[in-house]
């Protein structure tokens, strides 16, 4: 692939998905886009780039989808789901006892393993959640992965990565060599297409946001902007869960680490106070500053 074509693709991917490819990722681009080019009847990457330059919209979507990493598996890293069950849920059950509702957003949910893992966790707590309105909103940039997520159908390989065998037997139905998650769990998850680079205020406020293993692909500036907007979508006592290799520390003060729980963050109250102080009349601002 020549340098100009690579630069074109880097810029396109950054604009459309926020994906921040370093200068040495030509091999990755080639390995993912060459099959796509062949599928489109094109001999190579150069011809694919030419098509994209000519404004092939459907092909552009396919390129973005092929390049965005969809690596995921059930109960990935395990600990976040232990935190959900043992820390977040008990706190929310207490804090939301009056309104009896819980909204969870699974951002960049890929093929559904994460939102369905959350749903299975909540299903195990069905007794204490009886009478509650629970929403799990799964969003992803790619319509293709959302369709797979909606179907809830997984290969034998996929159901063996992270999913305890007891949960497979309990929540899945075997269809030949495939496994489909049962309708009661599927029905707990709503799917929506969403680009994290674009406005997501219409989703409303959430009590818990899973945004794991996606921000690592963004540059610093994009991360800061997304953290700011995520903080606005989270309730004051809500919890943000990031991936094992991700943190807000040193990037944004919109969140602060949750005490003694690695990977969990809460909106920064000092920040909210400053924002409120900024909105106050001048005289009151002085009082607030004291």
């Amino acid at each position, binding site marked *: 692939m020549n340098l100009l074509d690579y630069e074109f693709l880097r810029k396109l991917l950054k604009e459309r998905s926020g994906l921040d490819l370093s200068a040495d990722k030509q091999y990755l681009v080639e390995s993912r886009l060459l099959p796509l080019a062949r599928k489109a009847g094109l001999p190579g990457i150069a011809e694919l780039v030419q098509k994209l330059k000519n404004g092939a919209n459907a092909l552009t979507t396919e390129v973005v989808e092929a390049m965005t990493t969809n690596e995921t598996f059930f109960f990935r890293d*395990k600990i976040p789901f232990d935190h959900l069950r043992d820390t977040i849920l008990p706190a929310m059950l207490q804090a939301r006892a009056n309104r009896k509702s819980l909204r969870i957003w699974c951002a960049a949910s890929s093929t559904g393993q994460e939102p369905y893992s959350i749903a299975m966790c909540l299903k195990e707590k069905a007794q204490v959640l009886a009478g509650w309105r629970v929403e799990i909103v799964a969003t992803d940039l790619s319509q293709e992965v959302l369709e797979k997520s909606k179907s809830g159908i997984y290969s*034998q*390989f996929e159901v*063996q*990565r*992270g999913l*305890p*065998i007891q949960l497979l037997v309990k929540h899945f139905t*075997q269809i030949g*060599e495939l496994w489909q998650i049962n309708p009661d769990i599927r029905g707990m998850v709503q799917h929506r297409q969403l680009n994290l680079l674009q406005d997501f205020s219409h989703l409303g406020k959430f009590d818990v946001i899973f945004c794991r293993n996606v921000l690592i692909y963004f540059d610093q500036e994009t991360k800061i902007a997304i953290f700011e907007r995520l903080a606005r979508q989270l309730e004051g006592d809500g919890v943000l869960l990031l991936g094992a290799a991700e943190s807000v520390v040193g990037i944004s003060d919109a969140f602060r680490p949750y005490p003694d729980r690695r990977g969990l963050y809460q909106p920064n109250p000092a920040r909210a106070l400053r924002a409120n102080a900024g909105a106050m009349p001048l005289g009151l601002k002085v009082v607030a500053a004291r």
Partner: protein
Amino acid sequence: MRTCLVVDDSSVIRKVARRILEGLDFQIVEAEDGEKALDICKRGLPDAVLLDWNMPVMDGYEFLGNLRRLPGGDQPKVVFCTTENDVAHIARALHAGANEYIMKPFDKDIVTAKFQEVGLI
């Protein structure tokens, strides 16, 4: 170092499993059927058993029942690893005391995930 008894009548499967599990820091003992595996367990219990279902002489299901009846036989974590990939077999294995279940074909990721699941890693 933890020990894992790999029980399978296929020498190829035993070799593949050995390579994966040695990479996960297990010391491996091999047996080609349930009876030989049971003899090994009577001499000393391993920490884990990776267990095929269909084998000559004594199959994996019968071996598991016998293992669980040995003194201390409830301790080893037993992970079935078999081509019997239907719910009925899985349910039967769990009922008999299996801790996890791998449906063949398998790879390193699956073995790692399953051994993590039962607290062996």
